[in-house]
């Protein structure tokens, strides 16, 4: 029976583990929590900046955080830039024709 070594203090026991974690570099990817990957207004993927934002500053538009996604009450989602232009013409969702009202904004 190995009675004596077992009840040693817990710190020491932990350090005696064969493998101990020193550093973990964890990688995750985020994406907009959307049902459809493509913005129906500009036909660009919602993970990319909308067409207008891409055109405005060709070189460094990728650094921008502002081109976010907006969800309507109907749960359809678009680039916020695209939708805010769209509602000036027509206050309905381009996909389901329901009256547009914002449910939440991406951040």
């Amino acid at each position, binding site marked *: 029976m190995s009675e004596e070594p077992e009840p040693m203090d817990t710190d020491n026991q932990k350090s005696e583990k064969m493998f101990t*974690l020193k550093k*973990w570099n*964890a990688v995750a990817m985020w*994406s907009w929590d959307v049902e459809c990957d493509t913005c129906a207004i500009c036909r660009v993927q919602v993970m990319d900046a909308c067409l207008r934002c891409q055109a405005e500053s060709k070189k*460094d538009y990728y650094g921008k955080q502002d081109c976010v996604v907006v969800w309507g009450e109907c749960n359809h989602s678009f680039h916020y830039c695209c939708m805010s232009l769209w509602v000036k013409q027509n206050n309905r969702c381009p996909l389901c024709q329901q009256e547009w009202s914002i449910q939440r904004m*991406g*951040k």
Partner: protein
Amino acid sequence: MLKERGQLKFEDKWPAMRLIVLKLLRQESVSPAEWQDLFYDVHLVCLWDEKGPSKLKEHLQEDIVQFIKQAQARVLSHREEQALLKAYIAEWRKFFTQCNYLPTPFRQLESSLQGKPATGTANLQTSNNKKGQSEESIVRKLMLDSWNESIFNDIKHRLQESAMKLVHAERNGEAFDSQLVIGVRESYVNLCSSIDDKMQIYRENFEAAYIQSTEMFYKLKGPEQLAANGVQAYMRYADNKLREEEARAQKYLEAGSNAVIQCCVKVLVGNTLPILLAECAPLIKAGETDRLQLMFRLLERVPEGVQPMLTELESHITQAGLADMVAAADIITQDSEKYVERLLELFRKFSMLVHDAFNDDPRFLTARDKAFKAVVNDTTVFKLELNTNKSIGAKSVAPESKCPELLANYCDMLLRRTPLSKRLTSEEIELRLRDVLLVLKYVSNKDVFMRYHKAHLTRRLILDASADSEKEEDMVEWLREVGMPADYVNKLARMFQDIKVSEDLNSQFRVSTTRHDAINIKILNAGAWARGSERVSVSLPVELEDYIPEVEEFYKKKHSGRKLQWYHHMSNGTITFANEVGRFDLDVTTFQMAVLFAWNQRPNEKVSYENLRLATELPDSELRRTLWSLVAFPKLKRQLLVYSPSVTIPKDFTEHTLFWINQEFCLIKNSRPQKRGKINLIGRLQLSTERSQLEDNHSIVQLRILRTQEAIIKILKMRKRITNAALQVELVDILKNMFLPSKKMIKEQLEWLIEHKYMKRDDDDINTFIYMA
């Protein structure tokens, strides 16, 4: 004394006039009074005697011819050539001088003969002003023509011959008075009274004789030289002689005609062209730049001379390049540094050759570039590799050069912290990156480079392995400068931006919590980094699992509307391994961690493959790969894991294969076991699963098809209608910075687009396409 008007006759005046004329011809001194008398008498004869002018001309001619006859006799009395020439030149110069004097008193005669009223001097003056006297003077023409007909035609052959003999003597290195030849030439030039073509007599006689004798000389000497001294010496001879003849022609010939040099070129170069060209390949091969330069100088003078040299150069570079590559196939297909350095060495060598031998002549630069292209895009070497490595799934796609992949690998070695990048200064790294871009210029499947470059960049950023982040971003701009497609370059730029955003986020996270010193997070934009890539599930060790909820909670507070997905196949870390020998820090992937931590509860047990699969929940292929990296890591003398029974490839592990920790594991340095140390077991960080890697290979084909379709539509949209040939040209132009579309693929895509009504063929011309909106 003066006779009555009307009674004045030519015959009365002529005897006195004649005396003065003869004196003038003989260049004897004429007093001012005599000179004036002559003027006056000409005037009188022309004015009063109806037949005076014609008689005057007749008699004048008679005396001129007489005088020339005497001169001829004097000249011909010399038998010896130089003396003859000397005498002729002297007589001619005298006579020619008189050609400018004698006509002056006879101006009145000129007017009368031309049927003009013999009035005051105004008329004379205007005509004088219109054309120089010498140009239209009848008397002058009379003199020159007479000289031409009587003396010149008689002895011109002797003159020419004598002059040419002198030139010949000079060619043979004998000295003589070059003024003799020059004098003869001048007489030929000045002799011509034709206004339209003053050079006629000179050209048809002197120059023709000169060219003929030159041709004869080199037709004889050239082959003699060639036979006696060989081609190399002959080229020097020809080059010297051409220059010599150029100088000689300047001395002895009138300017403006290149005929004699062309003749020399024809004889010395043109006639021996095949023999000279046969030297070209050996000289290129031996890198004899001086001789090549000489050859280039010679062959450039003949119309078909340079083209064969270009062909030789191109085929030599191509062949030498490929031979070099094949000879070193084993090394270069494995070692991208050696491959690229070998290529660059080749480029440098041949660029230097083109510079030294051909003065960077654009035609030779083009030939060089064509050859570089052939070498860079050649698949021979890589086909060889495929043959030895049949386990790689056979692709239906035509084999392509691995050059772009190796270039990307080399870039990675320069940009990552590697022994190579540590060895080099920042300037050296920049130079080498520029070299890569230089080679890339010749690569036709640049899309392959882009794909590998992006994958390497992803690894460097995720592993924080860049040697110099400034240089990383410079490289992106350089890629933009050399014309890589903007959307591709933008994607790279976007990754840099995103990694900075993620770094900020990590700092915030670490501030928000104090107990998690062990964790760093990278939360990246899926659109920029991992579009379409597949995730792999794994059962994390509790030590890692514990962190997940807190990170997710933190992220939810910062952002909304986002979902997070963990990419454990990309994540990694450092663990400490303690065994009987010592303690070691291991850089490992999360998958390796998951496998190794399975032993923490049972350090000395042998664990079956099946058991590990249950513990880690890794998919079969990932588990096999991970285990293989722990039992057969290339850099380790003692492996971390031991297993039994032995296999040669990971596929052969069975569920019963047993694995256990090597308690004797340690690092070996200078063949001595170490008790402490750090080793990186990550190898090449996996960016996607095995399945999606296969898909990657297909995706490059898919992407090309898509790009081709897009480009065809773009062209048709703009042109509305276009011929097949024009379309192909524009298409290649649009796509050339990504890849070279094959004829077959273009055809297939055209058919597809026609089938799907994006476009149609013209009813009248099936080789013309029409855009359908």
